[in-house]
């Protein structure tokens, strides 16, 4: 049997052979050493008892005999005939290497995992594990994250010396704020979700680490030397959270990420929150928002009418509306708003599942109320003072019990008749995903599904495309066969806004991204998404693409501290990657194209 040397088949920047050789020379666990598969904390010395994960290709019968003779305490797992997986100490590895029965031994390099972090697809690295192509790391920039909470014990929130990279934290659910010193001294090491701003969901920890996480098991956030301003939100006062971040940032450049939203408004930038964001942004103060995941959720209808045209569209109210983190009521509830231009005339009728016809009152009526033992309704018809002055109908359905009869949730219908039309455009949205869905209808639209506050002129709205469809998990390798790399994510909400503005501005990798897993969170219980031993999580959404852009803007702010939102958009537009999936001009799915981080920085 020919014995091959390590150098023949170990092509990592640092091979097992060199680790074994250098292990006796007080080698430190640098990123390169750890990327080669050595399980050491950053900066720690490499010892004989340091562990490395390897695959061993061998003559199985002979190997088993020799292994028994060596009497090693390490765990070996027989994956197939002649193939073993092992997590070995370096001392054991040195012995295994010498066995005649071993044909080949390979370290399980971190870069070999199917972990997508979007950095290659955005031009930040030429290939996984390669050196970043830009010098900016976010140093001197603050990244605000408004989200479900944060597991501050995760290594991605700490620098290479183990110091927390959090400038301050606001917990809107308790009203408490924490300084950097309090977090570092008083609360250090408290297990999630019991620590300040704890993350019982797992979303916020993941989002923050995408934007600015410290390198961890081969994954690194876009701006790993930025510092964080963190807000565990109550999901309602998100505008106060953004204001808090900018106030805390003071004169320092700051980008705030909002990976959340709703559809309660005119989708024309006119709500107080949307207008406020336009007021708050400034040179060096930028807001990034996810576009939403509602493209195919059937929560939007829209179309152009001519006089006398009549359309009916049915809908079903969900038995279990979203609750928990969003603190929404448990009994079924839905709010439908329908928007049209000031000079147009429409009439509307709501038809109940029992066939009762309820005319929507004439414009100027705040709310007519109806009810019985099962449900309360409110029907309003009001003027709207937005950028395109108009009118809107509001239909609120509030059921009284989660156990309402099934036939009362289904087969509601809205009948629309156009009386006169100058523009003739009508748009309708349910308040958010998961509350109610329209039945198939010619009014059902995939465009204009972008949510609030992404529709704000003050926010940079981010769509999602597929950068990776395979990932490792505690349940073994996973693959999403339903998506194509490079294509827009099927869920990614599309523009434009109702008043015709070009949003989203840019598309970022959002499917699937591997980043920090919050221990003890609900997402930690999903084995096909987690690598618990490595504290990593692979999930999808515009929630994930937005912090890619927020991280990119942190790098841009490092280069140009006075960067304005308009300049950031222009740099991303000019440098955006276009291909066979995207158009070469703005389009509703990709915006101006795919995020090109290095290109955008070079445009400044």
């Amino acid at each position: 049997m020919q014995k091959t040397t390590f150098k023949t088949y170990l092509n990592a920047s640092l091979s097992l052979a060199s680790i074994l050789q250098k292990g006796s020379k007080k080698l430190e666990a640098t990123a390169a050493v750890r990327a080669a598969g050595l399980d050491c904390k950053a900066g720690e010395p490499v010892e004989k008892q340091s562990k490395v994960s390897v695959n061993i290709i061998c003559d199985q019968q002979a190997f088993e005999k020799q292994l028994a003779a060596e009497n090693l305490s390490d765990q070996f797992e027989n994956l197939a005939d002649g193939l073993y997986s092992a997590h070995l100490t370096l001392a054991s590895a040195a012995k295994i290497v010498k066995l005649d029965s071993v044909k080949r031994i390979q370290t399980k390099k971190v870069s070999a995992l199917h972990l997508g972090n979007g950095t290659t697809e955005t031009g930040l690295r030429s290939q996984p594990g390669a050196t970043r192509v830009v010098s900016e790391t976010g140093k001197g920039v603050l990244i605000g994250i408004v989200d479900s909470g944060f597991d501050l014990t995760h290594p991605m929130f700490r620098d290479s010396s183990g110091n927390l990279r959090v400038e301050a934290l606001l917990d809107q659910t308790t009203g408490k704020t924490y300084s950097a010193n309090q977090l570092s001294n008083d609360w250090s090491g408290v297990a999630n979700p019991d620590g300040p701003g704890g993350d019982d969901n797992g979303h916020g920890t993941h989002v923050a680490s995408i934007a600015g996480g410290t390198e961890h098991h081969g994954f690194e956030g876009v701006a790993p030397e930025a510092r964080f301003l963190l807000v565990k939100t109550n999901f309602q006062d998100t505008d106060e959270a953004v204001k808090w971040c900018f106030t805390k940032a003071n004169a320092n450049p700051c980008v705030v990420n909002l990976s959340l939203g709703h559809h309660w408004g005119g989708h024309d930038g006119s709500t107080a929150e949307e207008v406020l964001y336009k007021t708050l942004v400034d040179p060096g103060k930028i807001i990034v928002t996810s576009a939403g995941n509602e493209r195919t959720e059937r929560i939007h209808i829209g179309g152009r009418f001519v006089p006398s045209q009549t359309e009916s569209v049915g809908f079903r109210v969900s038995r279990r509306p979203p609750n928990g983190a969003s603190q929404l009521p448990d009994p079924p509830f839905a709010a439908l708003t329908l928007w049209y231009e000031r000079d147009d005339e429409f009439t509307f009728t709501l038809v109940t599942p029992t066939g009762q016809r309820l005319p929507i009152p004439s414009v100027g009526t705040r709310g007519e109320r109806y009810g019985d033992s099962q449900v309360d309704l409110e029907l309003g018809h009001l003027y709207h003072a937005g950028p395109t002055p108009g009118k809107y109908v509001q239909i609120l359905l509030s059921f009284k019990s989660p156990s309402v009869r099934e036939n009362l949730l289904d087969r509601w219908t809205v009948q629309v008749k156009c009386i006169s039309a100058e523009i003739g455009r009508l748009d309708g949205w349910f308040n958010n995903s998961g509350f109610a869905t329209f039945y198939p209808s010619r009014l059902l639209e995939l465009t204009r599904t972008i949510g609030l506050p992404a529709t704000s002129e003050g926010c940079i709205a981010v769509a999602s495309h597929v950068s990776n469809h395979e990932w490792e998990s505690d349940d073994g390798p996973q693959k999403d066969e339903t998506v194509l790399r490079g294509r827009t994510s099927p869920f990614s909400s599309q523009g434009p806004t109702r008043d015709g503005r070009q949003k989203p501005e840019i598309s970022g990798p959002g499917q699937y991204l591997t980043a920090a897993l919050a221990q003890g969170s609900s997402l930690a219980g999903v084995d096909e998404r987690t690598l618990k031993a490595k504290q990593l999580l692979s999930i999808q959404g515009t929630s994930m693409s937005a912090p890619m852009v927020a991280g990119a803007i942190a790098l841009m702010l490092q280069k140009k501290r006075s960067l304005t939102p308009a300049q950031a958009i222009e740099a991303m537009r000019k440098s955006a990657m276009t291909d066979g999936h995207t158009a070469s001009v703005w389009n509703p799915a990709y915006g101006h194209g795919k995020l090109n981080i290095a290109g955008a920085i070079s445009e400044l």
Partner: protein
Amino acid sequence: MLRKKNTSLYSQSEFVSARLRPRSGVSDSQVLQWLADHGISEVNQLAEGFISVKASRKDLHAAEKFAEVEVQPHSQLHQNKD
């Protein structure tokens, strides 16, 4: 059979988070004074012309005389569920 009702869908004593934008001719300070006079203490001026309050629906209804009032909707996270 649904019948017309006079009662509101929501309890008027329910406290909600809302945003007030003073109507034309009304200053921020006038709105802030009115809120103080009515014992509404959870007030945060986010920017000129933007006032965040936590108040009862009844008080917010009264505030509509001099300010546009919007109850803040709940947001949802944008993680796509499988």
